[in-house]
C-alpha cells in the first residue's frame, strides 16, 4: 500500500524508504552496548540517597551516626548551588525551586534529603539506613481537584494557592449552547511511571588536567542537561562535559535535569573521586517522576446528525511538587487546551486548564505527552455522541474529521495540519476490524458469557515543532535550527555528529540512511556520533518526535554541502568544469570518467600535492543547520481499532484484534517505524488496562514494586495489524513526519471505547484509565443494582 518513492539513491536498498536492519542491533543484541551502569572508572564509589519517607513535612533534624559523618552530606554541607528552576514565561506561572537536597521542608515522598557515599551501593544503603530523620508531618496535598479548595494545605506556601498556572482559551462557545445534543462527563487518566528498561543513572568524575566535570548520565538531551547543570552549579558550560552512552529507553523520563545529577556533580568535586548513582526500580516507582494524571470535566455539543458544534472543557493536570527542567510544570495542561479538538472541525471551543501542585513527584511529558489523555477524553465523548445519535462511532468521526481537500488546515486552536487524509485512515481501520461482522457476532452473544465490543480512536500528532511554537512558552529550552556535522574520513568513510540522542529509535541506522541518500556512501561506512556534548553540535536533544525530521534534515543539509564540496574537488581531479559533473552513487561523474568520494577524500587529506592551487579551501568537514520550511510541526496521524472480549463478572479483558492505520509521511525506515508503533502500542495498553500509581490520603505512593505497578508484558500485547499510508509533509526534507510517540496515544481510547461498546447494553460506562477488573465489576454490579431498583 506504500507508494514507492523515488530518491537519488535509487535501487541501492539503503536509502530513504529501505527496511534496513538496525546497525546498532549488532552491538546491542550481543550484549556489547555500554550503558551508564556498565561504566567503570578507577576510584569509583557508590551513592545511595536518604529520601523523604513522607509526602509533606518540615525537617526538624537529620541525625547522622558519628562514624558515618564523613560519608553523609546534607543541605547543610552545601553552599553556592542554586535550586533547579524550570520557569515558563506564560503569564501567571508560579516558579518552584527544587533543591538539590531538601532543607526546611520536603514536598514529596522520595525527595532527596541526604546522600551517602561508600565503596559499594550496599554499604551506601547501610549508611543511608543509619541516618535518622526528625520530620514534622504536614497535611499532604494528594488530590489535584481538592488542592484548589480554599484552605487546602499548600505545597509552596508563598504562592498562596497550589496552582502553577491557569489558562483560558475560547472561541465563541456561546454558538454551541443551543445544540440539540449535549453530553457532559468527568474523565480521568491515572498517574503512571514511565518505566524504561534502564532507569536513570549517573557517573560523575572530575578531570583535573582539563579542569572539567564529566557527567555520564542516561539522558535524552545532554546539551540541555549541561546548561541546567551549569546554571545550578554556577560553572561555565565549557567546564562540563555530559556523555550519554547507550540508553535503554527514554520516553521523557530521561528528558530532565535531575537533582541527583546536581548532587553527584557537586559530590565528585567535593570528594575528589568519581561517584555513581544508579536508580533502582523502587526509586523509579516512588521517587522519580510520573506522568499522565489528567482530569477532564468536558461537555460536547453536537447536532442530531453527529456534526460537532463545540467542546467545553475544564482540564486539570496533577503537576506534582516541582517544575522539572527544562519542561515546565505547565507544559502538559497548557498543551491540553491547544490539542483537545483533535483532528476534528468544530466552530466553537472553550478550554480552561489548571496545572496543580501536589505532594507527589513532578509530572513529565511521557510518550504522547498530553495527547494520550486528550485522545482518551475526546474519543470517549465522541462515542457518547454516537450513542445519542444512534450512529456508528466510526460514522460520527467521518462526519467531523478534517477532510483531505481542506489540507493544509488551520484548526480552531490555530494548529496547522500539514497534510493527510484522516477519513481514509478511519475508513481503512473500520474495514480492517470489520465492524459489521462484530455487530453480527454481538447479536448472537458469546457461549462463555463474555461480551464482545469494538472501539475506534483517531488522533493527529504535532511533532518536531520548533521556534515559532516554543518561543511563546518562555521555557528554558526553545529549539532553533538543528545542526549536524558531516566529515569525510581519509579512507572515504563518513562521520556524522548530531546533538539528538538515540535510546531505542534506531537513529544510528536511519541517519545513516539519510546520508546514504545524499552521498551514496554505504551505510556500513557511516558512523553516527551522538550523546556527548564534547563531540556533537548543540541540540535541545531527543523529544517531541523531532529527531528524524530535525536531525534527519540537518544530516541531509550537511551531506548536501559536503557532497557539493567533494563534487568541486572531483571536477578539479577530472579536469572538468564543475558545472559538468554530478555526484552519483558515491562518485563524481563527468563525461570522460569518474572519481570516487574515497579517492577525493584520500587526495584531500593524504595527497594534497595532487590538488590544484585554486582548490576550494573549505575542506571535507561541514556543519549545517536545518529547519523545515514551516516549523509549526508535522502532523502524523493514525486510526486505531480494537475488538475486545470482556468478562463482566471477573472483569477480565482480552484484546481479540487490534488494527493501526498510520500515516507518518515518508518513512525513512518502515521497519523502524513498525517497531516504534508496536512499542507505543504496548505502552498504550499499559495506560488502558494496567498501569497506575495510586496514592493514599497522606500522599504515599502505594505501588512500590513491579508486583504492584503492573506493566504489560509479551503476553498482554496482541499482534497488531499495521497498515501504512504515506502522505508527505510539504514542509520537511523528504516529506518525513515525526512518528515516535503516536503508538502510545490512541490505544487507551480505542480499548476503552471497545470495552464500553461491549458493556453498554448492561448500562456500564468506563471513563477512567486503567480499566481494571475491579473497576469493571464494580461498574457492572452498580448497573445491575440500579436496574433492580428501577424495576
Amino acid at each position: 500500500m506504500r507508494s514507492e518513492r523515488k530518491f537519488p539513491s535509487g535501487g541501492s536498498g539503503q536509502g530513504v524508504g529501505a527496511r534496513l536492519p538496525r546497525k546498532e542491533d549488532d552491538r546491542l543484541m550481543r550484549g556489547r552496548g555500554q550503558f551508564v551502569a556498565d561504566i567503570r572508572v578507577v576510584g569509583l564509589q557508590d551513592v545511595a540517597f536518604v529520601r523523604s519517607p513522607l509526602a509533606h513535612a518540615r525537617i526538624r533534624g537529620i541525625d547522622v551516626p558519628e562514624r558515618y559523618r564523613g560519608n553523609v552530606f546534607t543541605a547543610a554541607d552545601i553552599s553556592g548551588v542554586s535550586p533547579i528552576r524550570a520557569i515558563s514565561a506564560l503569564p501567571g506561572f508560579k516558579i518552584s525551586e527544587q533543591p538539590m537536597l531538601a532543607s526546611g521542608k520536603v514536598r514529596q515522598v522520595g525527595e532527596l534529603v541526604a546522600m551517602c557515599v561508600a565503596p559499594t551501593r550496599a554499604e551506601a544503603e547501610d549508611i543511608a539506613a543509619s541516618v535518622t530523620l526528625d520530620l514534622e508531618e504536614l497535611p499532604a496535598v494528594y488530590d489535584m481537584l481538592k488542592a484548589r479548595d480554599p484552605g487546602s494545605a499548600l505545597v509552596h506556601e508563598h504562592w498562596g494557592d497550589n496552582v502553577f498556572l491557569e489558562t483560558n482559551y475560547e472561541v465563541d462557545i456561546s454558538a454551541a449552547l443551543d445544540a440539540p445534543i449535549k453530553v457532559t462527563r468527568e474523565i480521568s487518566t491515572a498517574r503512571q511511571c514511565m518505566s524504561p528498561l534502564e532507569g536513570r543513572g549517573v557517573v560523575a568524575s572530575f578531570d583535573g588536567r582539563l579542569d572539567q566535570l564529566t557527567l555520564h548520565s542516561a539522558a535524552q538531551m545532554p546539551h540541555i542537561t549541561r546548561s541546567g547543570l551549569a546554571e545550578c552549579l554556577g560553572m561555565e558550560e565549557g567546564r562540563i562535559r555530559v556523555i550519554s552512552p547507550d540508553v535503554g529507553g527514554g520516553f521523557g523520563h530521561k528528558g530532565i535535569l535531575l537533582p541527583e545529577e546536581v548532587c553527584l556533580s557537586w559530590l565528585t568535586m567535593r570528594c575528589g573521586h568519581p561517584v555513581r548513582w544508579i536508580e533502582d526500580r523502587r526509586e523509579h516507582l516512588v521517587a522519580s517522576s510520573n506522568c499522565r494524571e489528567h482530569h477532564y470535566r468536558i461537555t460536547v455539543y453536537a447536532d442530531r446528525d453527529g456534526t460537532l458544534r463545540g467542546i467545553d472543557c475544564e482540564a486539570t493536570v496533577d503537576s506534582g511538587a516541582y517544575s522539572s527542567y527544562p519542561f515546565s510544570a505547565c507544559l502538559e495542561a497548557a498543551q491540553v487546551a491547544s490539542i483537545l479538538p483533535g483532528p476534528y472541525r468544530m466552530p466553537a471551543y472553550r478550554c480552561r486548564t489548571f496545572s496543580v501542585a501536589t505532594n507527589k513527584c513532578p509530572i513529565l511529558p511521557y510518550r504522547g505527552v498530553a495527547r494520550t489523555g486528550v485522545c482518551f477524553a475526546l474519543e470517549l465523548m465522541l462515542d457518547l455522541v454516537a450513542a445519542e445519535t444512534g450512529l456508528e462511532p466510526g460514522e460520527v468521526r467521518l462526519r467531523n474529521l478534517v477532510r483531505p481537500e481542506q489540507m493544509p488546515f488551520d484548526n480552531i486552536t490555530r494548529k496547522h495540519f500539514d497534510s493527510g487524509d484522516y477519513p481514509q485512515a478511519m475508513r481503512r481501520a473500520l474495514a480492517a476490524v470489520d465492524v459489521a461482522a462484530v455487530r453480527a457476532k454481538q447479536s448472537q452473544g458469546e457461549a462463555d458469557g463474555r461480551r464482545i465490543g469494538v472501539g475506534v480512536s483517531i488522533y493527529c500528532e504535532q511533532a518536531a515543532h520548533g521556534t515559532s511554537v516554543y518561543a511563546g512558552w518562555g521555557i528554558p529550552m526553545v529549539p532553533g535550527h538543528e545542526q549536524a556535522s558531516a566529515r569525510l574520513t581519509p579512507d572515504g568513510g563518513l562521520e556524522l555528529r548530531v546533538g539528538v540522542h538515540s535510546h531505542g529509535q534506531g537513529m544510528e541506522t536511519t541517519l545513516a540512511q539519510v546520508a546514504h541518500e545524499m552521498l551514496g556512501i554505504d551505510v556500513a561506512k557511516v558512523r553516527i556520533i551522538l550523546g556527548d556534548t564534547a563531540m556533537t553540535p548543540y541540540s535541545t536533544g531527543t523529544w517531541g518526535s523531532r529527531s528524524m525530521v530535525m536531525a534527519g534534515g540537518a544530516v541531509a543539509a550537511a551531506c548536501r554541502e559536503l557532497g557539493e564540496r567533494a563534487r568541486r574537488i572531483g571536477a578539479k581531479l577530472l579536469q572538468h568544469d564543475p558545472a559538468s559533473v554530478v555526484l552519483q552513487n558515491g562518485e563524481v561523474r563527468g563525461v570522460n570518467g569518474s572519481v570516487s568520494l574515497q579517492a577525493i577524500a584520500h587526495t584531500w587529506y593524504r595527497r594534497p600535492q595532487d590538488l590544484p592551487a585554486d582548490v576550494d579551501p573549505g575542506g571535507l568537514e561541514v556543519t549545517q543547520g536545518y529547519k523545515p520550511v514551516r516549523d509549526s510541526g508535522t502532523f502524523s496521524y493514525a486510526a486505531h481499532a480494537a475488538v475486545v472480549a470482556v468478562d463482566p463478572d471477573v472483569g477480565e479483558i482480552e484484546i481479540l484484534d487490534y488494527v493501526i492505520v498510520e500515516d507518518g509521511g515518508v518513512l525513512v525506515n518502515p521497519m523502524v517505524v513498525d517497531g516504534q508503533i508496536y512499542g507505543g502500542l504496548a505502552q498504550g495498553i499499559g495506560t488502558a488496562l494496567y498501569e497506575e500509581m495510586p496514592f493514599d490520603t497522606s500522599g504515599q505512593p502505594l505501588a512500590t514494586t513491579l508486583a504492584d505497578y503492573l506493566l504489560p508484558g509479551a503476553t498482554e500485547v496482541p499482534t497488531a495489524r499495521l497498515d501504512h499510508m504515506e502522505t508527505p509533509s510539504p514542509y520537511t526534507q523528504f516529506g518525513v513526519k515525526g512518528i515516535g510517540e503516536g503508538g502510545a496515544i490512541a490505544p487507551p481510547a480505542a480499548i476503552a471505547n471497545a470495552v464500553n461498546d461491549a458493556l453498554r447494553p448492561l448500562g456500564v460506562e468506563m471513563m477512567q484509565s486503567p480499566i481494571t477488573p475491579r473497576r469493571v465489576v464494580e461498574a457492572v454490579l452498580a448497573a445491575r443494582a440500579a436496574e433492580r431498583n428501577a424495576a
Partner: protein
Amino acid sequence: MKPAPFFYERPRDLNAALAMLAANGSAKIIAGGQSLGPMLNLRLVQPELVVDISGLADLKRAEICGDELVLGALVTHADIEDGRTPDVTCGAMRGVAANIAYRAVRNRGTIGGSLSHADPAADWVSALAALGARLTLRSLAGARTLAIEAFVVGALESALQAGEIVEAIHVPARAGSAHWGYAKSCRKTGEFAHAIGAVLVDPAAATARIVIGAIDTPPIVVTDAGELFGGRVAADYKQRFDARVADILLVKAGIGDAVQRHIHVSVLKRAVHEAAA
C-alpha cells in the same frame, strides 16, 4: 535495593541445617529465593543468618509411598510442570505448576518454599488444600504433620515454629471418579492471582472439597462442601452450585467488599465449570 548484611550458611545435611536454625532464632531459610530474594533486597526482612537449604539432597526426593505422593520441600514447580516427579493427581498438580508465575520463577521456586512463605495468593496454598495434602514439619525436637489448611494461619503467616522447617508434602491419590477444577484470575500472565477457586468433586462418592483462595486471610477451605451444591454432591453439581453460599462464606471470612466477593465467587464458579466439563 541491596540487602542489609547477613551471614550465610549452606549446610549439607538436614540435621546441621536444623541445628543452625535452632541456634539462631532470626535465621531465614532460603531455597529457590523467589520470594525471600526480593524481600531481602527491599530490606523487608533483615535476618542475621540465611541458611541455604538447596544442598540438602533429602529434601529433593519425590516418590509414591502407599497411596500418597511424597514430595520433598525442594522439588521445584518446574520439576512438577515437566513431569520429573511422579503424579497421583491425574495431572492436576502438573496443570497448577505450569501456570505459576513465569518459567524463570518456576525453575528456581520450590513447593516447600512457596508453602512456607504462606502467601494466600500462591497457587500451592489453595491447590494443595483442595487436594487434601498434608505437610511434614521437622525440627531438632522431631517431626509433626499438619493439613495445609491448618498450616497456613494468616497472610504470610504459617504454623512453622522457630527452628522448624517444611520437610515434605504428602498428596493423597485422587480418586478416578473425582473431578478437578482450578481457576484463577490474574491482572496479567504470571502475576499473583487476585482470586483463586479450586474444587475436587467426587460425585460417585458424594464428596467435594472447595477452596477460595487469594483473599487477605488464609484460604477458605470447605472439606465437606455439600452446602455449596444445595446440600448434596451429585452428578448435577454444576447446575446446583449455589453462588450465594460461597458469598456468605466470604462474608464470614471478613471480606466486606462486595466487588471482591463477586470476583471470588465468579472465579470459583469457573473452577466448578471446569471440573464438570
